[in-house]
């Protein structure tokens, strides 16, 4: 039988943390209490390695209703409608069981949204895998996409976009990030707060099993037995993977939204990481009250579960609602209609006074509401007072050599034609598996620059506004310069939104990094956060939520820094679709925005897909050019917004230049329209494939009028050529038949996946 | 008495089975030769209170016909089984 000293280490707590706990409690913690701290103070739940740095992000803005720290960020989108948004990761489970890992990732993010009272309206999935030449990667891709499809479609939330990135650094560490956006009438906004002494905490949804009890299972091996003397089951029998039930989640969504509509709920919280202990301690801490939790009242799926299992289980599809006792019957009846289990598992109690007369809300785990107290800890210390680490940071000593190895200076071999074809991949195989249309809101769906939805849905006030969404990341840039790379990713996101006429309003982020115990990783994380802050301040964007996923490493090898930026924008009037990539015969094609990058090289190829495909991973990326970005973004946004509002325009196409550079953008537009173009000579392969954001390919049926407007806005425009013929020609560098481009782009992904016909 | 019954549901002869066909096609690449006629189906397990084996199977068959299978495209067969030890 191990002593509490070594037990705390087995639970992942350091000696210092153990000392902190003893100070807080004024005594030795018992085993259950240690287990609760073990999960709540884990990296996954407490963000102890990142919180210090996240504080540097700008989080406020006039339209922000809820900033970071709650389950989701919320903005006022106008017309009495609030929009909630969040992004999360489910990386490690997806590597083990891709279908269920991805499926439960979707389930989790949905709960974060409807916990705010918002009906989930759309999901996006940025995904990262190793190269598809490896059979295991193909297996992962198919599993993850099926999982998102299976869960998202069944639960009834459309998936409207995402990203698909292949790079060897993810081979052992796939990344599955999921973003969700929802909407609600502003006055229906609810926060996850427990309040009102005497109120009940009601557990809704699935029964509780032994899912996800990973680290805490050391208690079993340490010989810890349950309070009734029964020992828990062996490790071999623990389910290592949670299985999602979208049907349960659908009923849970409908029941929770109905409870909110009927005013029966005071606060609501979803159960995610660390399950019930997290939900109860967080709601109590936010409300500065105490809570008694009766473990015997929790419906259990497995026999003989012991208290630490019940409190830390990560079984899916559960929510915690705070209600007034007089509403219990109404709550039970409503839940019964939706076949949703509802059990009173907690009671809000008065805080106690400590020695200095301060009110402290205690979380008390009990064997029956009037039964033995099994654990008694301050809720706030569990939920909010995990130690803050300032882990060592160090710029990698190898970085200078990598930056100096710049592909921009190469004399390229091979042909630009082949390079262009290699860049073209249509992700339709992925998004055809997702319902992207439910709710009749999808004006621009997956596969384009940004998704564009009508701001409408069941129960929402009438509005003709639209919301736009984009997820953007560029790990290749960030590996070379995490600060500027992240800033440029934000810029790219805003550019994508401009393509559908939307003004960017808020940012959420999912920071996927390697092992924080590596100083180079902490340096990357800190730099990335600073870059995000710089770009957000320059572009007037609040960061209203985020997620951090660390320890994405295998065999000592970290993934490239992969900050994923989620952008939310608003279109004031959406009655007509934006032009998309649909240029017509005879239209003039122009490059809007600066022609040359700010920085050392005018056409930097460091971190470009062109270079990466050639195995060249070094070089310097462009600088973040706020000065030219803002006017360009504003101009393009306004041009497209006019069309969305139903106005006349000569603009027939718009596409931002990013991955694949100008050549890639032209190739995609040719593939989408089956119309050829003739474009002038560009400045060698650099200008063809350089990727710095802030540039747009646009097409117009009235070049003079367009140029006049651009000039009036102070935005640079370069006339590139004309839409005509059945070939894609760029000077003397590129000459390809349209048909070949269409076929290559269409078949690239299915060929790589070796999908059997 | 309590009987442990297994109901196997398979697609009727002649009904398209793309799942079975896909599985069969994938086997040689995985190193399995000489495997053919693969059909994908479903299996349901349950405990049935009945007076005899025959009665238990009859109950299971009725249940299978009414709910567990779609007779338009599926066949169902009930059999007694051994409960797997936990």
């Amino acid at each position, binding site marked *: 039988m191990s002593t509490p000293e070594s037990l705390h280490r087995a639970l992942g707590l350091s000696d210092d943390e153990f000392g902190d706990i003893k100070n807080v409690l004024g005594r030795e913690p018992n085993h259950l209490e240690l287990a609760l701290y073990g999960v709540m103070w884990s990296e996954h739940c407490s963000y102890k390695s990142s919180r210090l740095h996240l504080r540097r992000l700008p989080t406020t803005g006039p339209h922000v209703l809820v900033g970071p720290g709650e389950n989701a960020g919320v903005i006022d989108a106008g017309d009495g409608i609030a929009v909630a948004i969040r992004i999360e990761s489910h990386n490690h489970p997806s590597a083990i069981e891709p279908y269920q890992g991805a499926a439960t990732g979707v389930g989790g993010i949905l709960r974060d949204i409807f916990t705010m009272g918002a009906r989930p309206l759309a999901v996006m999935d940025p995904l990262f895998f190793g190269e598809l030449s490896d059979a295991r990667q193909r297996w992962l891709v198919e599993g993850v996409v099926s999982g998102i499809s*299976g869960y998202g479609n069944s639960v009834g939330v459309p998936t409207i976009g995402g990203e698909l990135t292949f790079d060897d650094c993810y081979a052992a560490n796939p990344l599955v990030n999921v973003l969700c956006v929802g909407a609600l009438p502003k006055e229906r906004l609810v926060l996850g707060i427990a309040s009102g002494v005497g109120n009940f905490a009601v557990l809704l949804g699935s029964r509780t099993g032994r899912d996800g009890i990973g680290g805490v299972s050391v208690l079993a091996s340490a010989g810890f037995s349950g309070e009734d003397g029964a020992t828990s089951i062996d490790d071999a029998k623990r389910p290592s993977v949670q299985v999602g039930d979208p049907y349960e989640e659908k009923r849970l969504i409908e029941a929770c939204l109905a409870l909110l509509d009927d005013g029966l709920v005071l606060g609501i919280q979803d159960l995610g990481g660390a399950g019930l202990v997290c939900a109860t301690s967080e709601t109590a801490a936010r409300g500065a009250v105490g809570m008694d939790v009766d473990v015997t009242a929790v419906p259990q799926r497995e026999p003989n579960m012991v208290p630490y299992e019940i409190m830390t289980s990560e079984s899916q599809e559960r929510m915690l609602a705070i209600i007034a006792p007089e509403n219990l019957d109404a709550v039970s009846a409503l839940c019964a209609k939706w076949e949703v289990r509802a059990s009173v598992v907690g009671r809000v109690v008065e805080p106690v006074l400590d020695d200095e007369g301060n009110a402290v809300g205690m979380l008390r785990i009990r064997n029956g509401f009037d039964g033995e107290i099994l654990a008694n800890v301050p809720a706030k210390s569990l939920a909010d007072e995990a130690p803050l680490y300032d882990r060592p940071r160090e710029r990698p000593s190898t970085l200078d050599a990598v930056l100096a190895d710049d592909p921009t200076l190469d004399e390229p071999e091979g042909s630009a034609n082949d390079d262009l074809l290699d860049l073209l991949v249509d992700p339709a195989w992925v998004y055809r598996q997702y319902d992207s249309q439910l709710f009749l809101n999808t004006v621009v769906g997956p596969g384009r620059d940004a998704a564009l939805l009508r701001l409408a849905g069941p129960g929402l006030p009438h509005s003709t506004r639209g919301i736009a969404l984009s997820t953007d990341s560029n790990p290749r840039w960030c590996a070379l310069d995490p600060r500027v790379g992240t800033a440029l990713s934000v810029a790219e996101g805003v550019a994508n939104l401009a393509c559908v006429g939307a003004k960017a309003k808020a940012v959420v982020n999912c920071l996927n990094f390697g092992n924080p115990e590596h100083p180079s990783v902490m340096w990357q994380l800190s730099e990335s956060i600073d870059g995000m802050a710089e770009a957000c301040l320059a572009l007037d964007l609040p960061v209203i939520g985020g997620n951090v996923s660390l320890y994405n490493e295998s065999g000592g090898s970290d993934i490239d820094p992969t900050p994923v930026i989620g952008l939310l924008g608003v279109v004031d009037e959406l009655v007509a679709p934006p032009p998309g990539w649909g240029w017509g015969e005879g239209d003039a094609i122009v490059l809007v925005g600066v022609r040359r990058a700010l920085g050392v090289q005018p056409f930097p190829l460091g971190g470009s897909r062109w270079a990466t495909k050639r195995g060249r991973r070094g070089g310097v990326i462009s600088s973040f050019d706020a000065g030219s970005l803002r006017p360009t973004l504003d101009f393009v946004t306004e041009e497209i917004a006019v069309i969305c509002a139903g106005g006349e325009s000569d603009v027939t196409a718009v596409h931002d230049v990013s991955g694949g550079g100008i050549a890639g953008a032209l190739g995609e537009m040719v593939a989408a329209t089956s119309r050829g173009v003739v474009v002038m000579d560009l400045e060698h392969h650099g200008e063809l494939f350089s990727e710095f954001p802030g540039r747009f390919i646009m097409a117009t049926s009235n070049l003079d009028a367009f140029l006049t407007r651009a000039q009036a806005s102070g935005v640079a425009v370069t006339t590139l050529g004309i839409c005509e013929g059945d070939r894609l020609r760029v000077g003397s560098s590129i000459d390809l038949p349209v048909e070949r481009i269409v076929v290559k782009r269409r078949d690239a992904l299915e060929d790589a996946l070796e999908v059997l016909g | 008495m309590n009987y442990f019954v297994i109901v196997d549901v398979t697609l009727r002869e002649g009904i398209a089975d793309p799942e079975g066909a896909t599985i069969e096609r994938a086997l040689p690449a995985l190193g399995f030769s000489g495997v053919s006629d693969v059909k994908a189906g479903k299996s349901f397990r349950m405990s049935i209170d009945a007076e005899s084996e025959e009665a238990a199977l009859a109950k299971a068959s009725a249940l299978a016909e009414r709910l567990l299978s779609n007779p338009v495209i599926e066949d169902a067969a009930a059999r007694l089984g051994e409960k797997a030890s936990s």
Partner: protein
Amino acid sequence: MNRVGVVVFPGSNCEYDAVLAMETLGTTAELVWHSVTDLSGYDGIILPGGFAHGDYLRPGALARFSPVMDAVRSFANDGGPVLGICNGFQVLTEAGLLPGALQKNIGLTFLCQPTTLVVTSQRSVLTSGAQIDQELVVPINHFSGSYTCDDETYQGLRDNDQIVLRYKSNPNGSRDDIAGIANERGNVVGLMPHPERAMSTLLGSADGRVLLESFVAAHVAA
């Protein structure tokens, strides 16, 4: 048609869209919970798309036992117009109100994409206002949309002009490219594509209008 009932099973999710589509055509529509047993106030019934009971066991297999389905059956037997969209079509086949069955797509993946449908019969409440050979772009959204039936049933469908919509390019392996069928009387129709998703050019296509306009114009069949 004055009042349409849109049946909601636990797990249905296209009911709001169906109501919106009806309202776009100037027809009142209400949600009808699956425990309701009296449909006498309605002029037409829609079984919408979604995942009733999570599609567990088989799509529609559990929904067919819901209390409301007896009322739907009576309503249909009395000649009332009944439209099953996607999951609704699956429920109708499981309930025996339409012949045949829907199986998994031949490619074994979920498919959400526009399809071109060809109108092949006007003898139904869904297609009475359309032209034979008229082409309509309407999206599909399903994992199990492959229509199948035995030869005798198939012959009956042909003889009685019950195949109302076919795919121009078969996406899921359906027998004879069948996208939608009607019962013998023509008052019960099921189709896998979603006409309510094709009501607006803002969203990509308004070709579904002619189908839903036919439906709301339908009277109780003699």
